[in-house]
């Protein structure tokens, strides 16, 4: 992917972005802040235009920034984050409460204490739903299962949910600030620790951003190995999600069966690469080391067998009336809502939005594949389960194809990283569009912004809840399967 990076720092960049968002013919990808070398504050809007082109609009901020949340609801969290992290006033935001910092946040603990208006964030106010018989049910941050922390506040009448509000960012670790000042090759390690189950997608996206910034092209064998890792990660995620959905409707046999399929893929990965999750393999310029042909053959065999077993299992499950009964019409996310919140990934595709970075903004090995992108219009748990089953098969085919036509040669090319550059890169991670923006100053990271699909999709989850019973929340939440750490960073 070529990286059209606008270097304009005039306030015109912001006006252009706002005009495009008002016109409504582009998709908001991300909004993020930065500090220029002279100390002035900047805001960047990343948009996906009608022509399927990423465009970055940047500008310095003097005074308050006009909110676009009323036109593009997807901007709500981004604007709150900029307010928290850069102390930029947002004018006309409907709910400018702290997003990242909770009420007991210590004063002065901030990436930029000099400009911060943070400190004790004050009490968070949940929307109060009033009326006869309305109860509030608080859930989290510590949940019942082996999952990440977050808080959900339900307003219910009996079993039926009227309103759900999220209070997240319990796992905020200041990752973007930690990136700053690091040497370029060290950034990929931190990227791997942003969302552990999608660690390879994060590493590839970071590395591609570096490669785009310096105009470097990874050797074909390196590109093919990256595709294998990315698709394997997607298979693991989708198979695991499908099993968890079955587990949430009390079908423990398929849950155990998918756990077994997942573990067999992890074990063959460990045997093939020395690491279960492909950690440490992706490096700026390519892959850290090559994988021998016989190991790749063993991987291909395991992938084919797993895909076959999974297809058989998924079909039987989805034909079972009691599973259909729980999955169908549960947790519907309507297409219009999905579009206005700029939802991405399998969740978008299950709500009728046919978006996939691999096809829309192809990168690496994907440039030479005509990718099949399934989509469903129902927007319910069943649609999200079906998307995952179909995509598992597509991933398996991509892996088989990549291994069959494996190019020979080097897997890595050296990068003259001790220079200054700017670039970004997007990847279709298992959860959807993942994007890294990087500014590099003499070999060190000056700014790194991570647009995570979970940050984008979390605000859509509460909109799929009203009218559903609270007991279906785990199922609906699992069908979205968003990362808390990826969102909170």
């Amino acid at each position, binding site marked *: 992917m070529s990286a059209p990076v606008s270097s304009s720092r005039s306030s015109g960049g912001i006006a252009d972005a706002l005009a495009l968002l008002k016109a409504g013919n582009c998709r908001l990808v991300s909004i993020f802040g930065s500090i220029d070398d002279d100390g002035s504050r900047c805001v960047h809007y990343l948009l996906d235009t009608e022509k399927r082109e990423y465009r970055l609009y940047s500008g310095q901020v003097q005074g308050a920034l006009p909110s676009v949340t009323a036109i593009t609801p997807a901007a709500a969290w981004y604007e709150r984050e900029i307010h928290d992290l850069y102390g930029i006033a947002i004018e006309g935001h409907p709910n400018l409460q702290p997003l990242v*910092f909770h009420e*007991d*946040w210590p004063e002065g*603990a*901030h990436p930029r204490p000099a400009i911060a208006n943070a400190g004790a964030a004050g009490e968070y106010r949940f929307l109060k739903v009033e009326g006869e018989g309305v109860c509030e049910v608080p859930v989290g*941050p*510590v949940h*019942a*299962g*082996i*999952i*990440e*922390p977050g808080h959900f506040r339900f307003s219910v009448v009996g079993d039926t949910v009227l309103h759900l509000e999220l209070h997240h*960012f*319990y*796992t*905020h*670790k*200041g*990752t973007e*600030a*930690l990136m700053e000042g690091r040497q370029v090759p060290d950034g990929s*390690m*931190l990227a791997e*620790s*942003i*969302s*552990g*189950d999608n*660690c390879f997608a994060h590493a590839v996206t970071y590395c591609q951003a570096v490669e785009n910034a310096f105009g470097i092209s990874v050797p074909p064998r390196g590109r093919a190995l990256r595709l294998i890792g990315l698709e394997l990660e997607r298979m693991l995620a989708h198979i695991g999600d499908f099993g968890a959905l079955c587990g949430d409707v009390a*079908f423990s*046999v*398929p849950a*155990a*069966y998918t*756990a*077994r399929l*997942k*573990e*067999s893929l992890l*074990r063959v990965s*460990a045997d093939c690469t020395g*690491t*279960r*999750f492909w*950690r*440490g393999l992706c490096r700026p310029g390519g892959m850290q*080391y090559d994988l021998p042909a016989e190991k790749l053959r063993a991987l291909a065999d395991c992938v084919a067998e797993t895909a076959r*077993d999974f297809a*058989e*299992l998924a079909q*039987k*499950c989805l034909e*079972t009336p*009691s*599973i259909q009964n729980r999955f169908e019409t549960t947790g519907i996310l309507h297409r219009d809502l999905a579009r206005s919140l700029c939802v991405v990934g399998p969740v978008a595709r299950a709500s009728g939005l046919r978006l996939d970075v691999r096809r829309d903004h192809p990168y690496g090995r994907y440039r030479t594949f005509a990718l099949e992108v399934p989509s469903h219009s129902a927007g319910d748990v069943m649609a999200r389960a079906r998307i995952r089953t179909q995509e598992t098969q597509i991933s398996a085919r991509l892996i088989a194809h990549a291994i069959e036509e494996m190019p020979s040669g080097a897997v890595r090319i050296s990068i003259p990283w001790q220079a200054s550059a700017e670039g970004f890169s997007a990847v279709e991670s298992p959860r959807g569009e993942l994007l890294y923006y990087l500014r590099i100053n003499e070999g060190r990271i000056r700014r790194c912004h991570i647009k995570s699909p979970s940050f984008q999709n979390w605000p859509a989850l509460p909109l799929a809840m009203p009218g559903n019973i609270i007991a279906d929340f785990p199922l609906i939440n699992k069908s979205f399967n968003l*990362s*808390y*750490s*990826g969102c909170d960073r």
Partner: protein
Amino acid sequence: MIFDVAAQSLASKSALLPIEQLFGDCTASRMPEVVAGRLNYELACKAAAVCPTQALRLSEEDGCRRLMLDYGKCTGCGRCIEAGGGALRAAATGVPCGVTRAALLRCWNTDNGSEIAFDEASPDSIARQIRSLLGRALNIRQVDAGSCNGCEAEIGALTSPYYDLERFGIHFVASPKHADMLLVTGPVARNMEQALRRTYEATPSPKLVVAVGACGCSGGIFHGSYAVSGAIDAVIPVDGHIPGCPPTPAMLLTGILNVLKGKQVRSYE
């Protein structure tokens, strides 16, 4: 239909791994260890220089130049193995799990490559003790205090048919009030500090706490962030540490059993 699913599942061969194969195994964690005899001062310098978390560092004591390895900080990135010119390799066994923070340290003489021992333990007696522990029930409450979810992925794998933690009488429970042990991951994120304290307080005594992963042991790669309070033991008392980024299921199982073993010895004293 669903009975076909059960039939398909029953027809597949058992994947269960025997305890003997799991206990002490740390394959695929990419934790390094020194190859005896291959280490020299130059290679030790090269390996320490590329370590992103200072898990490997050089020190000098009584005129003896040493390479110190702190598994509690190691993220298993593999760079030292690449840079160490054959003096380091991925460890297949020997990474301590479920031990005190201090016992996560190993140390080698860089002049002759020999290991300087801190502690000796006979593997035979450990195996015997583990067998005597199996069958005892243990209820674990897992707490994510700010992890990246990599550790959760591996903890979740413990319940898969390969490891089947329940065969050892070990269960994951939904509430800290039902728990004997807290299995805590992540560097403690500031926003989670209070929730972690409250979860600890809600767990009835006697209770065990195990810090999991490089982040749980030392803050890992997030050490020093404005948004992180530190390692788990900076916030609540910890009985044992399991290193790794993330630790493999075999390392988690080894660590949990080792903490139980330590506790059993202590309770008899």
